[in-house]
């Protein structure tokens, strides 16, 4: 199947819709217009640059270079997680909790996918490693960011309840258990929804892209299933790890709630 190439004019039509949405937001004073425009501009610039440099990256045969690139992607994602928190942890913890759990989870699942399932040759083939890692990283990042924000905000708001439970002799795990469970659930809901409606309500982005690029639909579906399952596992493990570390950090060695370890960004 011949690939229909997009012109700048085609992209401009889509971009004009975002401009209209931002104008409407400004008119209705919703306060999201600026953020919408910045995000859309970032999408445009970042993806165009990626498109330009990706073929250069795919030509690379140095595993250290590929490893460095993955690390840079993870560091940027860790910064994004922190930036999305209303009350992030102070100091390096703000980056470390979300960043480390996200990296470990996404990296482990990328290795599983490329080395055990797809069996990429050579093992560091960037054409597989980078898009897969990017997908895993992006989704895990979103899950962790939502869950962490929910956990720290709820802990802040529900301080009297948490301390009330501690006062009755509950352990820190019991005192924050309900809040942690709720935050974890909110972090996993997007990927659970995505899996539930895949193929019925929505055609997932990767599969759509592959089909538009001319891949046989069944092959595209198989890759999409693999990615969705990996993304769900990555988001789940990453978010669980982040929730455990973050809730532990909210208490000190005497199981006191330490909200002074959180900062306010608003």
């Amino acid at each position, binding site marked *: 199947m011949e690939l229909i190439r997009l012109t700048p004019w085609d992209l401009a039509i889509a971009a004009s819709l975002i401009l209209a949405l931002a104008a409407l937001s400004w008119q209705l004073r919703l306060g999201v217009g600026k953020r919408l425009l910045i995000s859309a501009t970032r999408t445009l610039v970042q993806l165009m640059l990626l498109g330009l440099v990706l073929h250069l990256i795919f030509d690379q045969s140095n595993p250290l270079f590929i490893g460095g690139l993955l690390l840079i992607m993870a560091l940027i994602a860790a910064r994004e997680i922190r930036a999305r928190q209303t009350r992030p942890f102070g100091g390096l913890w703000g980056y470390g909790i979300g960043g480390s759990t996200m990296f470990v989870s996404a990296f482990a699942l990328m290795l599983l996918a490329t080395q055990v399932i797809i069996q990429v040759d050579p093992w560091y083939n960037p054409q597989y490693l980078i898009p897969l890692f990017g997908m895993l990283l992006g989704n895990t990042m979103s899950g962790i960011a939502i869950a962490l924000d929910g956990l720290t905000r709820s802990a802040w708001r529900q301080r009297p309840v948490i*301390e*009330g439970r501690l*006062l*009755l*002799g509950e352990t820190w795990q019991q005192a924050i258990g309900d809040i942690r469970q709720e935050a974890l659930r909110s972090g996993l809901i997007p990927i659970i929804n995505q899996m539930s409606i895949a193929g019925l309500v929505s055609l997932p982005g990767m599969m759509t892209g592959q089909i538009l690029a001319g891949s046989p639909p069944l092959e595209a579906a198989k890759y999409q299933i693999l990615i969705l399952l990996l993304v769900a596992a990555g988001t789940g493990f990453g978010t669980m790890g982040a929730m455990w570390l973050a809730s532990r950090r909210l208490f000190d060695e*005497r*199981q*006191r709630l330490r909200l002074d370890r959180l900062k306010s960004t608003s």
Partner: protein
Amino acid sequence: MSLELRGFDIPLLQPIDLTLADGWLVTLSGPSGAGKSLLLRAIADLDPHQGECLLDGQNQCSMPAPVWRRRVGLLPAEPQWWYDQVGDHFPDGKSTFLKPLGLPAECLQWQISRLSSGEKQRLGLARLLENEPRILLLDEATANLDQENRQRVETLIHDLQKSRRLGVLWVSHDPDQRRRLSDRSLRIVQDRLERESWS
């Protein structure tokens, strides 16, 4: 059991040396914001502090925090609730302290949303007493109660003081209550803890 503070240091107050002997009731008063609640929170090990806090000679740090908080029970001014129904907050959904506090047995089936502040305060005390604390820290425990229920709370605490040798540190703004109940009365003046005398 006795509670002993040695060089107990928290923000707002000078280091404190204090002994609360078993079976004693000590009241504490002072202006708002003087540090009364902070002192109770630190004794319950809810806030970081310096100095020593001993229960029958055993240091706070040598005991797991949940065990300490069960033995040294703090009733905050506004007890908190996190389940929908009252009974879910009690071990096995039962309490032996409802009747002395003037609460019907069926209150365990009540929804939290329908409780008055006075009911919350009495139920909070009943829930705390189920832990069988050796020391009781009360932060304005009768502030929301009418005279009849205040009397019930005072009688129950007095009985436990005698029967279980319960040591009580009670923050109270009511001078009559302090005079009526205390074996000793303390007052925060500026940043120091002083013995209150009745004139």
